[in-house]
Each structure stands twice: as C-alpha cells, then as structure tokens.
C-alpha cells in the first residue's frame, strides 16, 4: 500500500507534468551522463532528473546554466530512466527507495 504514496504518486505526477506541457518533451543526458526528462515551455525549461538517490525537478530560464544541486527534491529513489522509445512514445521507469519499480508509457509531442 505504501507504493501508492511513493512511486505511483511520482509516476502520476510526471505523466501529468508531461501532458500539461505545451512545448516539446525530450530526453537528454546531464553533464554526468544520467538521462533527464526535459520539458520545454517557451523560455522556461523544466528538467526532471535523478541526483544522489533523489528525484529532482528544476525550472530554469533557457539561457541559464543547469546545476543539478539546486533542484527541488520530489522523492527518494534508486533509479529513474526516461526513454524516448519512438518519436511520440516515452517510457518512464522509476524505482523507489523501497525497491518497487513502476513503469509507464506516455504519448509525447502529439501529432
């Protein structure tokens, strides 16, 4: 039941963020090589990524340099993998601190 409040909530939060985002959704590696979810909305970029066993979110102007330390903590996790499987299909895999893995497919950048 705890899973409902951890990884499921996080996956639901991420899918809602993706659906709400009017701009492009893409996956790009951070400077340390870990994949991050990038939601572009005009001049603002939202980056969702894993850093030191924590899922983080950071809103920055497109011109600002990204610093992984300054993001807002969302959840304690052990793994977060966003994968763009096809042009319009994103796969999110998230393993929470208790080892529960959640996987979700989301349509992105609709035609």
């Amino acid at each position, binding site marked *: *039941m705890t899973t409902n409040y951890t990884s499921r909530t996080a996956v639901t939060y991420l899918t809602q963020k993706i659906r709400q985002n009017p701009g492009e959704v893409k996956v790009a590696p951070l400077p340390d090589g870990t994949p991050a979810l990038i939601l572009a909305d005009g001049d603002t970029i939202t980056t969702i990524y894993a850093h030191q066993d924590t899922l983080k979110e950071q809103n920055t102007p497109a011109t600002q340099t990204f610093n992984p330390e300054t993001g807002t903590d969302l959840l304690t996790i052990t793994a977060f993998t966003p994968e763009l499987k*096809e042009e319009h*299909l994103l796969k999110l895999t998230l393993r929470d601190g208790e080892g529960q893995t959640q*996987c979700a*497919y989301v349509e*992105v950048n609709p035609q």
Partner: protein
Amino acid sequence: MKRQSYTSRQSLFLMELILAIFFFVVASAICVQIFAKAHLMSRHTHATQIAVEQASNAAEIIRSNPTHAQEALVKYLPTATTTDNTLTVHLGDDGAPVEDEGAPYTMVLTLSPSKTTMTADITVTQKDGATPLYTLQVKKHLAQGGV
C-alpha cells in the same frame, strides 16, 4: 437471611459477567467483519490500480502510433497473443506482462480501425472475477491515409 443475601449477590455478579462477555463477543464479531472487509477492499483497490495502469499504458502506446497500433502493441507487450484485431495479454501479480495463462489478470484489446479513426476497447479482468476490473475506450484520429 444472611445466606440468601450472599446467593443473590453471587447471581448478580454472574449476570454482570455474562452481559460483559456477551458485549465482548458482539464487539469482536463486528471488528473481525470490519477487518475482513478492509482487507478485501485493499485487495480490490490493488487489483484496480494494476488494471488502470496497464490499460493506460496500452492506451498511450495506441495513441502514440495509431496507424500501426497492433505492431506497436506487440512490440511493447511481447507476451501478447494476437487473433485478427484482438490482442490478449496476461498480467502477473505486479501488473507486468507474463506468458502464463493462469496469471491473475488478463487484458484484452480489441482494435477497430477505420479510414479516419483508430478505436480500441481495452478490458482488464481478474482471474476469478466475472465483471471486468476496468474498461477503457481509446479513439485517435488518423492524420493521413488511415489504416
């Protein structure tokens, strides 16, 4: 006289004890029923959550690739068995697709493609359940050409 009063007090105490035991038994029976009901509700909620998650995942796969929905579903749900426009996927306890036909959950996807729209009916049922856990209909307009 003294003996009669002693007997009367004894029977009064016995009656009080019987009444206390009676209320304890009634309260216990109610509590056990509440616990059993809560457990069943928790199991049903877990099953419904798995059904919603997997049906939503399948719906997103269809929406992302409506012109070749069947191929996309087979690609991302590799244990699916296909019959004409119907796909059957068995799901394990954690909702992951499995090959075992005795799996606790079964998801059936019926695709109805037309020239302009891809329609899919998704139904998730539990092994012992007569009624579906969750049903979902997906409709996606085909941008060009159709199927």
